[in-house]
């Protein structure tokens, strides 16, 4: 269990299945995520089985995000960790929409960054975000991420091509922001 200000991060568990399955079939939740096809409960179960079968380790960092009273509200993970570069790519989903726009995502990210820099010895964390995902961009900016590129028309969705923004935060920037 890794403690943040208003959330805790814990290892994923099998019992998370029904929440995850509901969230990733919710068009509002996945609007800015990479998945776009309906997911069967069996397929999601297989995914959760795989995710919970082994221990978390340097190359497999994924957490359930919980409120302080133990309710799971989302997931956060590093999709790609490159050891030589000490860099990772972050992905987050707040599936419980009642907890949107209230700082839970930002706290989860800060908590994971602290873990990434202090425990994993990473020095760069990056992410990509839909250019029209204003809520996401505001959150990442608030946490201290810097815009470093615009992948033009890199994502097709809802009948049109859209830009993806690349953002990153380096270890010394995070330390400076955290004070």
């Amino acid at each position, binding site marked *: 269990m890794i403690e943040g200000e208003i959330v805790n991060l814990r290892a994923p568990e099998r019992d998370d299945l029904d929440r995850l399955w509901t969230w990733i079939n919710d068009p509002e939740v996945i609007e800015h995520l990479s998945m*776009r096809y309906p997911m069967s409960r069996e397929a999601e179960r297989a995914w959760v089985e795989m995710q919970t079968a082994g221990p978390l380790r340097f190359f497999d960092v994924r957490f359930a995000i919980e409120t302080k009273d133990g309710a799971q509200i989302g997931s956060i993970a590093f999709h790609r960790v490159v050891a*030589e*570069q*000490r*860099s990772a790519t972050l992905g987050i989903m707040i599936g419980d929409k009642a907890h949107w726009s209230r700082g839970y995502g930002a706290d989860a990210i800060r908590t994971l960054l602290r873990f990434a820099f202090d425990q994993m010895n990473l*020095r*760069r964390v*990056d992410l990509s975000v839909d250019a029209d995902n204003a809520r996401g961009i505001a959150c990442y900016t608030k946490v201290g991420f*810097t815009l*470093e*590129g*615009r*992948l*033009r*028309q*890199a*994502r*097709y*969705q809802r009948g049109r*091509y859209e830009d993806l923004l*690349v953002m*990153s935060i*380096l270890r010394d920037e995070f330390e400076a922001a955290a004070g």
Partner: protein
Amino acid sequence: MIEGTLVNLRQRELTDHLRTHAWLNDREVTRFHPTRYAYSLAYEEAHYRLATSSGQTRERASFAIETKEGLHIGNCGLTLQYAESGSAELGIMVGDTSYWNRGYGTDAVRLLVRFGFETMNLHRIALAVYDFNARGIASYRKAGFVDEGRRRQAFYHRGCYGDTVIMSILRDEYDPGAGRGMA
């Protein structure tokens, strides 16, 4: 066979592993390439055996670069990232350093871009290049790629961190005349 002005792109063959193995163990070549560990000839042969025993797909189209005389001087390819978005990533290595700075790489990139848009029906082709690879960046610009970002300190190579430049070309920026030997 895809014919360009200075080079042709052909399917990869098993025996290409010999030259490729030499290039991947040439520090001058891999200075610009993400390869960092030494690979055995056996490993490279196994890799080629696997790669050449199946057909090309839209997921991964890879080619050997040949001069017009049939000399294998490098490799290149496109890897699909998202089928829905029609986006792919381009990779190229001119391993024979005597063909550097002479337009061979640029010609291969133009052919690959043409193949990506006209045959694979891509919408976007992107690549990442180390910021100190001025020759590569100039070549990609010449082939129509546009700078769109800089991943700060995104790679560690030979003792220091450096930036990666992201470049791309979109289908509507692609000039069909450019890859047809009309340059």
